[in-house]
């Protein structure tokens, strides 16, 4: 058994081991089942990276698991006799599939840390039109619409006022011209009035 332990421990001394640190205060405790899932994920990553389906869960070895939860792990290659896969290959495999590994544990790059593997920074999603331009367009349209409405209503009001004053002036012209207190219309100037006083005197004058 001692021999087996030594066999298991020795890979971690090798240079190809990668340190991993888990902050698992997020709802579950780190136990043997979690370790099994971790081994499965690393094997999955290795399979996808090298596209040869030979990596088994038993090829992934964890060691020096502390209470903090941090540990070292190596991946052995069963095709070649008990040699470990170079660290750079493992790093690359994990980096490629980082997202999947994180999601399996419901963790992110900060809570599931692989030391020496820097996370590739994904650029933020940029929509084709920046959002602020759309909002700005809305604000500007409302403002211009308001201005146009007010100017047009101002012009309409002015036209209405000037047409009202015109109507008023016409009404004034229609007012009757007054001569000596008697409206002209009642005095029918075309047809003259015969003054009855003078008409009666016609008979007094002798005819020639």
């Amino acid at each position, binding site marked *: 058994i001692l021999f087996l332990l030594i066999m298991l421990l020795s890979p971690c001394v090798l240079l190809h081991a990668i340190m991993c*640190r888990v*902050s*698992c*205060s997020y709802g579950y405790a780190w136990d043997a089942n979690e370790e099994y899932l971790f081994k499965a994920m690393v094997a999955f990553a290795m399979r996808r990276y090298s596209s040869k389906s030979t990596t088994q869960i038993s090829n992934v070895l964890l060691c020096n698991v*502390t*209470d*903090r*939860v*941090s540990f070292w792990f190596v991946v052995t290659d069963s095709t070649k006799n008990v040699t470990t896969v170079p660290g750079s290959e493992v790093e690359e495999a994990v980096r490629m599939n980082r997202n999947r590994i994180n999601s399996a544990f419901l963790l992110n790059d900060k809570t599931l840390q692989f030391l020496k593997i820097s996370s590739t*920074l994904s*650029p*933020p999603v940029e929509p084709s039109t920046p*959002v*602020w331009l759309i*909002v*700005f367009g809305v*604000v*500007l349209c409302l*403002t*211009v619409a*308001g*201005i146009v409405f*007010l*100017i047009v209503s*101002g012009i309409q009001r*002015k036209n209405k006022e000037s047409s009202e004053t015109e109507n008023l002036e016409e009404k004034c012209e229609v007012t009757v011209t007054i001569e000596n207190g008697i409206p002209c219309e009642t005095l029918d100037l075309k047809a003259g009035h015969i003054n009855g006083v003078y008409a009666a005197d016609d008979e007094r004058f002798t005819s020639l």
Partner: protein
Amino acid sequence: MSKDLSVDVSPESLKEDGRPKWDNKFQYILSCIGFAVGLGNVWRFPYLCQIHGGGAFLIPYFIALIFEGIPLLHLELALGQHLRKGSISAWNTISPYLGGVGVGSWMVSVLVSLYYNTVLTWVMWYFINSFQEPLPWSVCPLNENRTGLNEECYESTAVNYFWYRKTLNITPDVTENGTLQWWLVLCLAACWGIVYLCTIRGIETTGKAIYVTAIFPYLVLTIFLIHGLTLPGATEGLAYLFTPNLNILKNPHVWLDAATQIFFSLSLAFGGLIAFSSYNPPKNDCEKDAVTVAIVNCMTSLYASIPVFSVLGFKATTGYWDCLDRNIISIINKFDLPEQSIVRQNYTTWIRLLNSSYPEKIAGLKLKSCDLQEFLDQSVSGTGLAFIIFTQAVILMPGSQAWAILFFIMLFSLGLSSMFGNIEGVFTPLLELQIISKSTPKELISGIICLISFLIALCFTLGSGSYWIDIFDSYAGSLPLLVIAFFEVIGVAYVYKIKRFSKDVKWMTGRNPNLYWQITWRYISPLLLLIVFVAFVTLQIQKSPSYGAWNPKYEDFPMKEEKVYPPWVLAICVLLAVFPCIFVPLVALFHLIKRMLGSKDPSSVPPEVFSCQGANSNFPHPKI
């Protein structure tokens, strides 16, 4: 000769003078309150409270309010209401020698309108960016080759980067102008468009708009108050703000700051208040109005400082917790201790324990010392408070978009209602000057004013624009106002004579101004203004005018680089401060010379004779 001119206006002729008027009294009061309550109530008063001993600052503040703020406010409102004219014509009516006071306040209104709307442009830019998820100031962008974060952003913070680079695109020096920032130009156009929309027909349109822009900020402040008080760390912030330190009252700076804050907060000497009250019916109680507006303004300042400091306390506490958490993580990682063994509460005991047992390891970790007081001490006023500190705090709140949108709409409304007052201070005197014919539509005049202001304000959208706005704010928006207000009080108290003014006020309000008004108008306010003016000038001269430049290449970046203004910029500063004030003596001198020239020529007939003859010829001859 001017003293013989009667300024009594008979009541009957007022009904037909065709002057626009307020729809109701509430609109007028709301407009005055909106003008007085501005951005300074939110971002200057809480800062002053904090640095000047918390609750103790309220003592000099209220003393300044009673002896300087309210008397001057009453004076301006009564003046405008009685003379029913804008600032230039009103002061011309009081005395042609004092016409310069009106011209000076008109000039200040012009200068302030120019740069104030650019501040609103920044607010609008942040507002339209608040609709994004995640907020653009919460993450640093990547650098060109996508290997890491942008360097300038990484060394300062994402919030700083968004303000200085993405918004202002600031140049490292005030002499380097940079280019016009097209996004700011667009927002500036939109802002001036909104101002035009609201002031298109003078008080007819602003009177409607003010219902929204004056009341909405109070709603948002209340929402922030309720939310802010529920945030962790709010009580620390409030305790820090209001804990009185009475020793601070021995420092004359505190009294000076209180006096200047009251003065600028009430928006006195801009001419806008005179313009607003000139549209009032003549028999209106201006005394009650003045006291109401002043008290509402002060209460708003206090009311606004509560949510501001709750949020600042929350931000300081979050920063302190982050500092602690980072230290805890490094200790846990170094010593491979289980998670949750060290928490914030037992951090200090653990540190002591580990320091005694493994001092070298602890020293090797280079832990930062986390002090809550230090985080609370990071006090900022002005644009820094709104665009850096508050935006950082908003990111930490759940639902940050909604809070950011609310906050920036509130700032926009506050600034817009103050802009109405500024524009009215420019608009009303122009309408009354003889240079504009009566048939020109108001829409055209306000359009031309807004267009010219927009074109001039394009200078503030350059790379160095924010440095220029600081210059304008410190020099054009401060000293001339003190001078103009001083001459206002002196003019009314000693040229127009208080007895006559009291009679006018009695005619308007129905009661004689009591002893408080008499004493403050005659002696206390002018004296106080003189002292404040002298102290202000002395302080300005003592400290060499310098500014903090944002220079990414500075060795102590992200600290600001202290630079001195070059001589030509200093000349502009002096010009800005002196130009509005110079009109006061200039106009007086002009009239004095005119009078002297007029009296030298004996053949010139005094104008009164002509008017009598003219009047005679108009009367129909009774014998015809």
